[in-house]
């Protein structure tokens, strides 16, 4: 029978939640790396017991942990993330230039084909790769070397590379996103990159339609159709049907088009999910109602999913890496909140229940569907 493993990164440690395929009863692990920020954990698609975790602390810096047994035991691996060459400068909040400085790893993306190869998206934004299971990390400097770096700037969370989407049909193609620079694509396995932001419109930069400078919060795709991308931008929910070469808005009837997460149903590539969040400073759900919105038409037409979610006095946020889906039939959808709840739906979003509700603030949620 299938099993589901949910990897939850929080402000104060990592938690692993497991259930059988019915997804009715969940066990919750003791905290791993208690007291440390776990920005992200993810398992290898080709070896699901190979997990990687980004562990960091303001006191002790960055660590990368690796597990070969599904999270039962861990070992620290390499933690040296050195920019290639002279790091250069990017734009600071006040518009002045500021030196590139490594702060933390936001996102770890294991290769689709090799459990020892894993990509890392870091703050200040850069793209790293390890081919030896995380022991050594090399920057692929073509991204920062694109030439637009001096126009990149940090969002409120820092200048982070937070999304890494390998194209499952083309090993040379990877999509990434940076706050606040925008989305980029490589078609040569990371050697060179092009900004893919045509159609985005952002009031917070001098030219709202500039090629870079956009605060992209998250991108998602369905593996069967990797040329179709969905984006939750700082404001606006967007769609591209040409691998990011152009975008159009699909916010439609959402109560607010601000938010952080976006994801795609595992078995229905036109079914997508967002969690609208109020404004770019309040960062809690409109009207105190925690609602997931689902579109079954690839955008524009959205329905509120509320059954089992708090519909009053709810003022949590759902951060950009904190939604994921399983691949069971029917598709399970999961998200974590800054209030420490992880909610799950076993029926593609129709009904929700907390599978754990008192964790530290949730930073990331990933789901593994295991045979």
């Amino acid at each position: 029978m299938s099993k589901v493993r949910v990897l939850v990164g929080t402000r104060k440690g990592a938690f692993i939640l497991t259930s059988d395929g019915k997804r009715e009863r969940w066990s919750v692990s003791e905290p791993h790396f208690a007291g440390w920020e776990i920005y992200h954990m993810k398992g290898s698609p080709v070896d699901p017991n190979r997990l990687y975790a980004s562990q960091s602390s303001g006191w002790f810096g960055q660590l990368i942990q690796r597990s070969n047994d599904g999270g039962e035991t861990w070992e620290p691996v390499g933690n040296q993330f050195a920019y290639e060459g002279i790091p250069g400068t990017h734009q600071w909040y006040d518009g002045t230039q500021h030196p590139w400085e490594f702060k933390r790893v936001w996102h770890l993306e294991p290769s689709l084909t090799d459990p020892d190869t894993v990509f890392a998206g870091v703050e200040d934004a850069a793209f790293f790769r390890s081919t030896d299971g995380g022991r050594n990390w090399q920057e692929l400097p073509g991204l920062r070397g694109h030439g637009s770096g001096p126009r990149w700037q940090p969002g409120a969370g820092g200048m982070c590379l937070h999304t890494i989407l390998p194209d499952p049909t083309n090993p040379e193609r990877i999509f990434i996103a940076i706050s606040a620079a925008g989305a980029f694509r490589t078609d040569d396995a990371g050697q060179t990159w092009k900004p893919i932001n045509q159609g985005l419109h952002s009031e917070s930069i001098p030219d709202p339609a500039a090629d870079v400078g956009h605060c992209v919060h998250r991108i998602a795709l369905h593996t069967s159709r990797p040329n179709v991308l969905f984006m939750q931008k700082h404001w606006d929910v967007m769609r591209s049907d040409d691998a990011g070469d152009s975008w159009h808005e699909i916010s439609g009837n959402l109560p607010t088009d601000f938010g952080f997460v976006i994801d795609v149903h595992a078995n229905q590539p036109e079914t997508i999910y967002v969690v609208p969040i109020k404004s770019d400073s309040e960062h809690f759900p409109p009207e105190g109602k925690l609602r997931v919105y689902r579109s079954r038409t690839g955008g524009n037409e959205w329905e509120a999913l509320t059954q089992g979610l708090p519909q009053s006095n709810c003022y949590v946020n759902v951060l950009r890496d904190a939604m994921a889906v399983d691949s069971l039939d029917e598709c399970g959808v999961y998200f974590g909140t800054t209030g420490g709840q992880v909610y799950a739906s076993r029926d593609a979003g129709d009904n929700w229940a907390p599978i754990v509700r008192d964790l530290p603030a949730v930073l990331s949620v990933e789901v593994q569907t295991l045979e």
Partner: protein
Amino acid sequence: MIRVWLPGHLRTLARVDSEVHLEVQGQATQRSVLDALEAKYPMLKGTIRDHVTGKRRSFLRFFACQEDLSHASPDAPLPDAVVSGEEPFLVVGAIAGG
């Protein structure tokens, strides 16, 4: 023998449950002690000093013999009481809450 006291999180990371004892070749300085510490516990590399610059991480302090050595030269000799093992060299996390 040099005694080094680590913050709890670094003891957990290094899988030690009390102070660390190190043999240091040559003169005992912050640099030589931390080099010996990282050689014995390589998982601590980067957690006390920056990988590239070798500088103390800004939210850590170095104390010994009731003195703050955080801003002393990394190549200055450590106090005799630390060298003799009478007093520990303390790596302390800044009081920063959270």
